[in-house]
């Protein structure tokens, strides 16, 4: 996984709440292998009209926003299904950061495992980011994960919170299976002791 430190780039202003993982990646594409390129399925139904043609009003269909790597959405982004494919679709599209007032827990955790940074940001900050991005699509947003700040164009930096473990994994690009295996001795000891104490928990 590639480490994430800072990014200064344009924004996709997605003024939608409750964009669940079914909308990020409809269920019928879940059977596709990753090699199919999940960007083709990103927001598949949301970005098309009733006839299946691209809806020119959908933000990612507007050329000015089509390649911006920071997605900024309304509350409860990524709620619903645990499908990691929703994260693959965003990552394959080139999205590196998603900001929203709140996220589905499983989505946010899946995102971190794929190097995609999610940051929960107050609604008024989100509103300000949308306004600026809508006025000038090229205006950059700067995310500094080490400093835990974001900056809209040349405005003052705004601090944000992030779980320290998630931050460390993102900044180092850590594979957490390797991390866990570095605790092998503790794990082996636990497994033995647990089997003694809770043997009845094994399936019979």
């Amino acid at each position, binding site marked *: 996984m590639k480490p994430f430190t800072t990014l200064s780039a344009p924004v996709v202003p997605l*003024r939608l*709440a*409750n964009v*669940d993982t*079914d*909308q990020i990646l*409809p*269920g*019928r594409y*879940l*059977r*596709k292998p*990753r090699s199919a390129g999940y960007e083709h399925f990103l927001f598949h*139904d*949301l970005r098309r009209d*009733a006839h299946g043609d691209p809806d020119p009003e959908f933000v990612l269909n507007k050329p000015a926003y089509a390649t911006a790597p920071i997605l900024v959405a*309304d*509350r*409860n982004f990524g*709620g*619903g*299904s*645990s*499908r*990691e*494919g929703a*994260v693959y679709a965003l990552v394959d599209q080139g999205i590196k950061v998603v900001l929203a007032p*709140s*996220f*589905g*827990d*499983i*989505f946010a*955790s*899946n995102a971190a*495992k*794929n190097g995609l940074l999610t940051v929960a940001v107050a*609604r008024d900050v989100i509103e300000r980011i949308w306004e600026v991005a809508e006025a000038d699509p090229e205006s950059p947003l700067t995310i500094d994960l080490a400093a835990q700040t974001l900056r809209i164009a040349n405005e003052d930096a705004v601090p944000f919170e992030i*779980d*320290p*473990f998630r931050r460390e994994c993102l900044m180092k690009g850590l594979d*957490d*299976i390797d*991390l*866990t*295996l570095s*605790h092998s001795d*503790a*794990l082996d000891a*636990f*497994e033995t002791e*647990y089997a003694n104490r*809770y*043997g*009845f*928990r*094994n*399936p*019979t």
Partner: protein
Amino acid sequence: MTSSTPQTLYRKIWDQHVVTTRDDGTALLWVDRHYAHEGSFHAFDQLAASGRKVRRPDLTVGVADHYVPTRDRAKGSAEPEIREMIRLLDANTAGSGIRLFGLDDPDQGIVHVVGPEQGLTQPGLLIVCGDSHTSTHGAFGCLAFGIGASEVAHVLATQTLWQKPAKTLRITVDGSLGPGVTAKDLILAIIAEVGADGAAGHVIEYAGSAITELSMEARMTVCNMSIEAGGRAGMIAPDETTIGWLKGRPAVPQGQAWDAAVAQWQTLKTDAGAEFDREVRIDGASIAPTVTWGVSPEHAEPVTGTVPDPAQAGDPGRAAAWEAALDYMGLAAGQALSDIRIDRVFIGSCTNARIEDLRSAARVLDGRTTVIPTMIVPGSSAVKRQAEDEGLDRVFTASGAEWLESGCSMCAATNGDMVPPGERCASTTNRNFRGRQGPGSRTHLMSPAMAAAAAVTGHITDVRRLGDVR
């Protein structure tokens, strides 16, 4: 922490599973049970790509559900991609020595129905599955939650998971549910109250008399939809109902081990005085049969009400969301919910396709005729057998409903069972998201009895008005 500090059920189970804790509070937790399904192929691919092996194949159980055909099962799916999903699960589980309830197994079904039914789900366990409705299993007083493919790969390789402690939310439901009011109505009312992200970052414990009075099936319906309130997990402390339900099931301990297990299960309750980060109280008697009108489970109202008006939404963001939902659903503000015409009915899913759900639908369908296409898909093949032993299948087919093979079916439309674009479906599932049941589909969530009432009237109907509601 001293033993005299009162603890929540969540904390007790957490503590039993900690392998190691980092300074920032993130802990490596032991996983007792991992359920796999067809969608787990990404995780098996990741594992293979890293050259790792499954650490404890005995603690993973596979179930074919999302892609199984519900008709003409012997022929298999007509779509090669769907057949491939089932083949991959067969190959991945066989390759690692993992037990599988595959397409042809007499006990196949939806993973969240099969796990409890087999007794694989037990109090005190830490259970994960690459599926958000893993919260269902919390009905047994275990800690159960959905994870993504990378975490599934981690569990396969290490039998553990890194987790940060969640916040705790206790939802106490006092009193009793009224006649014709079910666990589905209760959980929809709860979600409408707290919001679709209201419990984000929290593990919910359900308590109170209206909860302890519920059967295991009903408790599973409640815990199943915890995720629709954004909850990481939902749980209910085990009691005599839980123990009685589990006794004698194939995978529970036997003899002395059973006694040891029961003694341990009886310690699994929140201590008096334990503190929760948040508390919500609801009066069970105030809940009416509840249906959704929009595209989020939080868009739920008592069936006696009307479609809400975005002008009353309170804030502009919410008003815009309601407006968009009404537009997608083809509804007008102020319309009586009971005037909404329905095109088809789906009774199924891990929320509401257990034996009690089917009995409740059968009571409404008995002696009546469905006026719109109605599919009934049992939660497992074992539930199907039991329903047939009880003669429920004959009630269903006599009413004109279709009685099919077990699987996820039209809940997520992954196996090809879909609601056609623009059609309105009364569904006992858990998600009314845009396009969830097929592109352009419109879903109204409700209980099995309410779905059956819609099937015989052709519109949303308060089941209590049909009479003879038990």
